[in-house]
């Protein structure tokens, strides 16, 4: 179906070998990066793959965009089988990979767009018109004829998006579209992504920013160690946690044995810590089983008995980050 | 200071070992590069050396292979220096560490000297291999006063590395090392007499070649190793090399200081 992505049991293992002479003799080592991933993305949806570094997000995107050959499984994109009709798949897929260098720095923004437009099968005339429209839309018209090397990261990212949009594809694959951008540029890119969706395109994006997934995505698949561990609308995922209250604290010191004794408390399901170097404080996040507020005194009691000073304390609603913590016991950013 | 230079040289060696393609660049190239010219000269000399007399009349030696090997070895030295020393700052610039390194207290000059020291050792080694290869495998004869030859070599050193330093600063500004190396080494190749006796050049070209220090080194080494020259025979060349040493080392150091000052002042020269 137009604009639809069906992924069935897709898997990828990398073969890792040492360099040099050992190359010849060493046994190949299979390293699974993506394990039997399945999902279906409906037309007009923004679908997010949320996961920490090394989770297998880029690997998934590269398999779907035909740059990598899957080890197992299959995918149907826009009605074409990935393995059988790779050229047809590429014709309908606008892909933006991570990195500022996916476009030519020694060409201008406009030249980049026209170049990629014609490579996607547009006539030169069409590509020129399309490029102008896109430049207007990306708010790059006044810089369009400067070399890309003089652009800021945000502008480069917008040209990279433009490159994927110029041939009007029904589906876009975006690998970490806002990574490395300042908040303002990231905001701009997110707005653009929503606009693109509103035009009826299907978008698969990866991210490791949970707010981004939360705000932007209609549905989110949380991926860790190459496996999808949860898949639903962000709201539903959070609702499942709803009966669990969350406590955020900042404290002046932290030791593993304190963490252990808190984990030993029956009403606490999870606790994660994160050291803020500049301020010299620790941020803690604790999940309370079934939202048992009675657990709070015992939590504070442990801290008090260990001589930890609590500097702030709040009970909050869960975010996607908390969903991730709940599922894996670890924090997204590391 | 000496200690620091040695430390840097050691560091360069460690980096160097990680790139196997350098092995080819260093040990295969110097051996195969002179071949084209040697075989061409063999064709020009004719069956049974029919035209060797002509060559001897113009150049003063019948050992045309040795003649070319000396020219080629010295030219390759300059080529190697342009890439390595010339690219030294540019590589840092591309990596984005130029500014931070330059702003650190350790003098960049010490760094460059350390790197140069390392590359001098490498180059000596390569020269030895090439000369051995041609004298043992291809029976090219080198006779003459080794001491005098070493003197010429020692005087060539500062000219080559002074040029390298000058070049290093230039590249930081021009940002196109490939083209710059091609250009400079091309000029040397055309004018310095790498493959031919200077006598065959038209007057205006010979005038240009007088401004290239390598011309004198090649000329002197050929006289020493192929024509058994004495100190008196190469005195003119040696004086010119001395002069060039002073000019190029001073020029190189000045250009380096100037670039350093600009980096410190503006904080950046841009990357690409």
């Amino acid at each position, binding site marked *: 179906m137009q604009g639809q992505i069906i992924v069935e049991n897709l898997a990828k293992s990398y073969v890792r070998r040492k360099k040099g002479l050992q190359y010849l003799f060493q046994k190949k080592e299979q390293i699974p990066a993506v394990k039997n991933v399945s999902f279906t993305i409906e037309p007009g949806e923004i679908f997010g793959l949320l996961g920490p570094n090394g989770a297998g997000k880029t690997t998934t995107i590269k398999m779907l965009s035909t740059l990598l050959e899957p080890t197992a499984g299959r995918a149907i994109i826009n009605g074409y089988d990935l393995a059988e009709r790779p050229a047809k798949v590429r014709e309908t897929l606008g892909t933006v990979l991570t990195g500022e260098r996916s476009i030519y720095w020694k060409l201008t923004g406009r030249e980049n767009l026209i170049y990629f437009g014609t490579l996607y099968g547009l006539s030169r005339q069409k590509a020129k018109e399309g490029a102008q429209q896109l430049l207007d839309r990306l708010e790059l018209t006044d810089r369009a004829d400067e070399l890309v090397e003089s652009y800021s990261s945000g502008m480069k990212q917008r040209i990279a998006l433009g490159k994927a949009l110029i041939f009007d594809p029904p589906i876009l694959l975006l690998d970490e579209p806002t990574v490395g951008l300042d908040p303002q540029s990231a905001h701009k890119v997110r707005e653009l992504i929503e606009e693109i969706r509103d035009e009826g395109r299907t978008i698969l994006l990866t991210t490791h920013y949970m707010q981004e997934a939360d705000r932007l995505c209609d549905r989110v698949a949380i991926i860790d160690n190459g496996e999808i561990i949860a898949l639903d609308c962000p709201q539903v995922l959070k609702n499942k946690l709803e009966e669990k209250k969350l406590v955020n604290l900042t404290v002046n010191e932290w030791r593993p044995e304190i963490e252990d004794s808190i984990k030993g408390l029956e009403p606490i399901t999870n606790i994660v810590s994160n050291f803020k170097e500049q301020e010299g404080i620790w941020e803690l996040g604790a999940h309370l089983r079934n939202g048992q507020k009675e657990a709070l005194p015992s939590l504070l009691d442990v801290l008090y008995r260990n001589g930890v000073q609590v500097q702030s304390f709040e009970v909050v609603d869960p975010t996607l980050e908390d969903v991730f913590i709940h599922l894996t016991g670890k924090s997204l950013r590391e | 200071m000496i200690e620091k230079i040695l430390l840097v040289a050691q560091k360069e060696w460690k980096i160097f070992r990680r790139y196997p393609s350098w092995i080819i660049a260093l040990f295969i190239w110097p051996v195969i590069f002179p071949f084209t010219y040697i075989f061409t*000269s063999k064709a*020009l000399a004719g069956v049974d050396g029919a035209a060797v007399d002509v060559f001897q009349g113009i150049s003063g030696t019948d050992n045309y292979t040795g003649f070319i090997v000396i020219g080629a070895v010295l030219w390759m030295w300059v080529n190697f220096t342009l890439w390595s020393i010339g690219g030294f700052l540019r590589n840092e610039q591309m990596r984005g560490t130029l500014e931070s390194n330059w702003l650190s207290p350790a003098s960049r000059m010490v760094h460059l000297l350390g790197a140069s020291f390392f590359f001098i050792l490498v180059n000596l080694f390569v020269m030895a291999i090439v000369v051995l290869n041609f004298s043992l495998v291809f029976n090219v004869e080198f006779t003459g006063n080794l001491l005098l030859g070493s003197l010429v070599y020692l005087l060539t050193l500062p000219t080559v590395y002074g040029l390298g330093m000058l070049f290093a600063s230039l590249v930081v500004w021009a940002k196109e090392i490939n083209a710059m190396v091609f250009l400079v080494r091309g000029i040397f190749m055309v004018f310095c007499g790498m493959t031919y006796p200077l006598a065959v050049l038209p007057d205006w070209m010979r005038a240009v070649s007088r401004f290239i220090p390598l011309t004198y080194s090649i000329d002197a080494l050929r006289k020493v190793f192929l024509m058994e020259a004495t100190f008196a025979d190469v005195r003119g060349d040696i004086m010119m090399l001395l002069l060039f040493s002073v000019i190029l080392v001073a020029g190189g150091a000045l250009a380096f200081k100037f670039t350093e000052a600009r980096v410190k002042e503006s904080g950046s020269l841009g990357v690409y």
Partner: protein
Amino acid sequence: MTWQDYLRAMGSIFLRDFYVFTRYPFNAVFRLIEPVVWLAPVYFMSLGFSVEGQAVGFATYTGTSDFMAFIILGAIISNYISAVFWGIGFSMKIEMDSGVLESNWLTPQPRLVHLLGRTLFNVLITSINCIWVALLAYYLFGFSWGDGIGMAVLTLLPMLIALYGLGFILAGIVLLMREANTLIDTSSYLVSMLAGANFPVTVLPRFLLVISFALPITYGFDAVRGIMLGTKTLLPLATEQLILVLFMVVMTVLGAMVFKVIERYCRRMGTIGYH
């Protein structure tokens, strides 16, 4: 995608290379004076062996004392060799390092279109260079295109196509080794040298001569010189031409196959853009 799309894509790739070329001004200037740099050392060398402008020793090997014509023909052909080698291998390495290679391969164009496309501009620059070298040679040395030009071009055409096949293999190797400079420099230099770009291969010592005779390109150099300068060829002209045609057939098939296999291997290993 139709063949018009492919042609248009190649046109775009050509334009892209042209724009990028103009953005490295030093390099652009250098490419134009390059021919002088490779001709001067051998020209002056020949003067060292010449009596009144006649390379007398050279004539004893080749039957012609017109050394410069011999060299210029050789240089022109070897320039095309390196244009194809560099055009395919080196530009691919640059793009692989920067990440645009993946962007290109995300487009629906077949890999072949990308490979062919990226040589076009190089071949054009080479042609311009050759024309101006020929003009220079005409004014300086009285070198002129003889009657054999048409025949010479016809003879070389299959060789040029065969070189593309070789270029594909090289592209595969670049993908695999992620290294290009030394590889291409060394291979194109060695091939040109051993095939006789600068001298009659008969001057080579026996063990190198064997390699030389095994390289079909040798017969390309030899045949063209036989046609245009009347030098004695290694084999009968017709035989040499036949070898070149066979070379073309074998190399194009082999090149396409090898590249395909390596490209698939890289797709499986994920080594195209992974650092």
